[in-house]
């Protein structure tokens, strides 16, 4: 429980209704989208504007009370679980689009805005905001920025960080900073905008963002390539990139994933295939036609059994639905679904897919693999049961091995979900001791009392493991 002196001041800042410390509020802010994690906060607060955020942080810094800012809590790294208690700051009330600047092609908005609402709004204006995290119907733009969310279009268009060009944020001290702006070029000092994107709520609380918008592609085409040979499918990914074609979407589904997706969505997918690739290209009609024809050739030369090009939008949508329902379908297999996002250079996709299968077999766990293969970002997904401690232990051991394999191939422990709590013990494997030290120093500069989302990114102790080589 918070001391009454703090609680009453928090009520004074936001009003009686918007600070809560009843059991119901604490329980319902003790988790996020990550399986098996739960920790109760001491209070929940819903600020309405930047000044309130500043006042809240000044107060909490004074009393050294931890604060976890969050949107819809859809993240998969435990990033918004209040492991050290304190106050959960829900940004839902700050949800306005402040401006869409049609001369500069930018949008300025508040962090609690729902991502899909925002995307629909700009599409209505004939503009395009490419980051499309699978959670976009639920997630907030602020949460996307804090975690640097990716999605199906990351390969060609980049991820959230490529579209955030200006921020307003409140530091732990309560001071308000502004970074960047409606500027395509800006090298005034360190790039604090980029630093805050993906900082997982540990450096500042984002209260306003300016995003870059682009013109939408004129046309698009979707195709499906089917393989009897898993390695061939994965190798195709590297071959396409090597041929200097960057598709808008290049997704991979392995056989167990194909089976559950089809069982769930009844799409008539080829159940006898070891893997399928879902490929989409967009742009000018001629370029799209040419690229899709070239890609189809590459698929065949890598021994694709069949290549089919969607005849129309309806069929394309069916295929995309298949991919998007992968998570849905896998979630029905067993009670607990642990989805990770090991990422490797695009040339190493094939090796990584084989490594995941070998590791799953060795630890006797079920891991289905799908993901944004085109940007090297795979989602090995364990279907398990949180109540079976022994199995969970094997799952964790398998994921440790998967992270290690990814790093050995020159990859990383997370491509788009963030470090949070779950991958904090592995961060040092990726960035090294000196890397951690620099990061800690940055954290100290922003948040000297360590009140902003404590316990995340930096683990108390790293997993001991010697990483032998880097591919």
């Amino acid at each position, binding site marked *: 429980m918070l001391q009454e002196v703090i609680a009453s001041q928090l009520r004074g800042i936001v009003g009686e209704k918007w600070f809560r410390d009843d059991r119901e509020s604490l329980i319902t*802010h003790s988790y996020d989208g990550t*399986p098996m994690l739960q920790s109760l906060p001491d209070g929940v607060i819903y600020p309405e504007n930047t000044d309130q955020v500043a006042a809240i942080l000044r107060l909490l810094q004074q009393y050294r009370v931890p604060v976890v800012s969050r949107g819809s809590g859809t993240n998969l790294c435990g990033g918004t679980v209040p492991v050290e208690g304190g106050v959960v700051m829900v940004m839902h009330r700050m949800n306005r689009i402040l401006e869409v600047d049609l001369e500069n092609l930018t949008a300025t908005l508040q962090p609690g805005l729902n991502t899909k609402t925002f995307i629909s709004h700009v599409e209505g204006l004939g503009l395009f905001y490419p980051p499309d995290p699978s959670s976009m119907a639920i997630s907030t733009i602020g949460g996307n920025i804090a975690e640097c969310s990716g999605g199906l279009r990351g390969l060609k268009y980049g991820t959230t960080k490529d579209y955030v060009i200006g921020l307003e944020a409140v530091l732990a001290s309560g001071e308000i900073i502004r970074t960047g702006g409606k500027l395509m070029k800006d090298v005034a000092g360190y790039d604090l905008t980029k630093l805050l994107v993906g900082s997982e709520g540990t450096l500042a609380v984002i209260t306003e963002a300016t995003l870059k918008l682009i013109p939408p592609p004129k046309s698009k085409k979707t195709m499906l390539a089917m393989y009897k040979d898993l390695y061939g499918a994965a190798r195709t990914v590297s071959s396409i990139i090597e041929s200097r074609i960057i598709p808008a979407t290049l997704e991979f589904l392995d056989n167990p994933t194909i089976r559950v997706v089809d069982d769930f969505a009844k799409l008539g997918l080829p159940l006898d295939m070891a893997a399928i690739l879902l490929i989409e290209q967009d742009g000018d009609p001629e370029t799209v036609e040419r690229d899709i024809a070239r890609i189809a050739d590459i698929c065949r030369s890598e021994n694709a059994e069949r290549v089919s090009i969607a005849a129309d939008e309806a069929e394309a949508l069916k295929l995309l639905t298949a991919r998007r329902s992968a998570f849905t379908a896998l979630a029905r297999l067993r009670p607990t679904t642990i989805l990770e996002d090991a990422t490797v250079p695009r040339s190493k996709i094939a090796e990584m897919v084989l490594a995941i299968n070998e590791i799953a077999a060795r630890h006797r766990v079920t891991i289905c693999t799908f993901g944004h293969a085109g940007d090297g970002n795979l989602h090995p997904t364990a279907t398990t049961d949180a109540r079976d401690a022994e199995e969970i232990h094997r799952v964790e051991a398998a994921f440790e091995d998967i992270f290690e394999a990814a790093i050995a191939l020159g990859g990383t422990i997370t491509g788009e979900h963030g470090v949070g709590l779950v991958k904090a013990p592995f961060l040092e494997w990726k960035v090294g001791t000196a890397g951690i030290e620099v990061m800690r120093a940055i954290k100290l500069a922003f948040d000297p009392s360590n009140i902003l989302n404590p316990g995340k990114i930096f683990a108390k102790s790293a997993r001991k493991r010697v990483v032998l080589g880097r591919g």
Partner: protein
Amino acid sequence: MIPASPGGTWGELASSLKQSLDYDQLTNCMRCGFCLPACPTFRETGIEAESPRGRIALMKAVADGLMDPDAAFETQMNHCLGCRACEPACPADVKYGQLLEQARSSIEMHTKTHRWWVKTLRKAAFDGMFPHQGRMRLLGGALQLYQRSGLRKLVRGAGLMRLFPAPMREMEAILPDAAYKGVVEQIGAFHPAKGDRIATVGLFRGCIMDVLFTETNKHTVELLNEAGFDVVIPDAQNCCGALHAHSGEQEGAKSLARRNISAFEAAGVDWIVSNAGGCGALLVEYDHLLHDDPQWSGGAAWFAKRAVDVSKLLVEHGLLQASVQTAVPVGTQGAATARVGASDIGSTASSPAGGEVLAADPGRRGSCGGSNGATPPAAAVEMVRITYQDSCHLRNVMRSSDAPRTLMRSVANAEFIELAESDRCCGSAGIYNLTQPEMAGQILDHKMEQVKRTNAYYLLTSNPGCLLQMKLGIEKHGMSGDMQAVHLVDFLHERICVR
């Protein structure tokens, strides 16, 4: 443990919840949050506890002993509309509706906190009224007497309605004319198909439907006959039990279910057809309701497999779409013209033209309700703009949202306009609009904003609760001159049959 009041404690509720909540379902919730945008109460408040993920977290916290149930817990469980829009949205297929019923059932056994009139209403409804079709008839008769004898005028004139809480006052004002005689009393229990018989269907007449919407029941029978079905209406059937089940009165729901299963088994029907989404949703889940009753589980499975909404049966098995209609639109004054009178409607055509429209097959029959079998000449039907509010339970539990739309799109001279967010609950939700008037009112206001934008003349629904709520919304928002809420069946009947 803190005693809630004499005779019941939160501790007892805690242990009862621990026993009744399905722990597998609680574990299946992986907290991904996909349910959040689908949930009407989350949308209205933006508060996590007001979402399915939040409510499941609260149930799990009680089951895990992390939290003792308290008044806030009870309030939160009652705050859910039970619309189950979260279920189609859930990747892990968590049976939220079942969890909610389990929680409410425990709460009902222990609660002491209902407001006096909610308590009175519940007792009267659940024990005294719904289980007894005869009493429902009497209630209908009393209501009819009240409405027609001038008593209503007297009561309203004397301001006596002010004695009742606002939500009940509002409902009284929009209640349609009740009937003392139900569908069987009015038209008998067996109605043969027109032309060749496809199958025999048993009409589930419903209790509220049969008192307040007897005409709709009659129209359902006529449409089904028209589409090639023999219709029987077993008189031994009674209330479906949905209001009981959704309000935590599990035992009441089960005993009603058993009687319905017996009644329809005895009638030997191929289908059991419902015209109320709220009832239908429970009918298709009788197998779940009675799954732990070995004596009845077989019958329940038989029943659940055959239960179907009238729209789905018409679209998938009926023979209505066999013909074309040549009706010419008259009156260009737009959608808000006077409602087309039944006598103006020519449903069956003699000359082929135009595209696929819904009309009875001229070769099969004459008029739906008529007896002479004569084919009336093609007559003009005014073009009318229609829109549709889904019944949540028809959509989310019976998973039928296409069939009503297919029917509406295929009606001649009707322009179907999709209502934005028609998949969102209207706030009626059984007796929710009476027990949770504030949230229900807020949801209804948002609903009516969308309804207004359609500029439709007919607002169609597939469930009596939704229909009453839409009538209330139209009344409250001063739209009664421009729009009417009508049951889909009545609209189809008007357009297809000649009475």
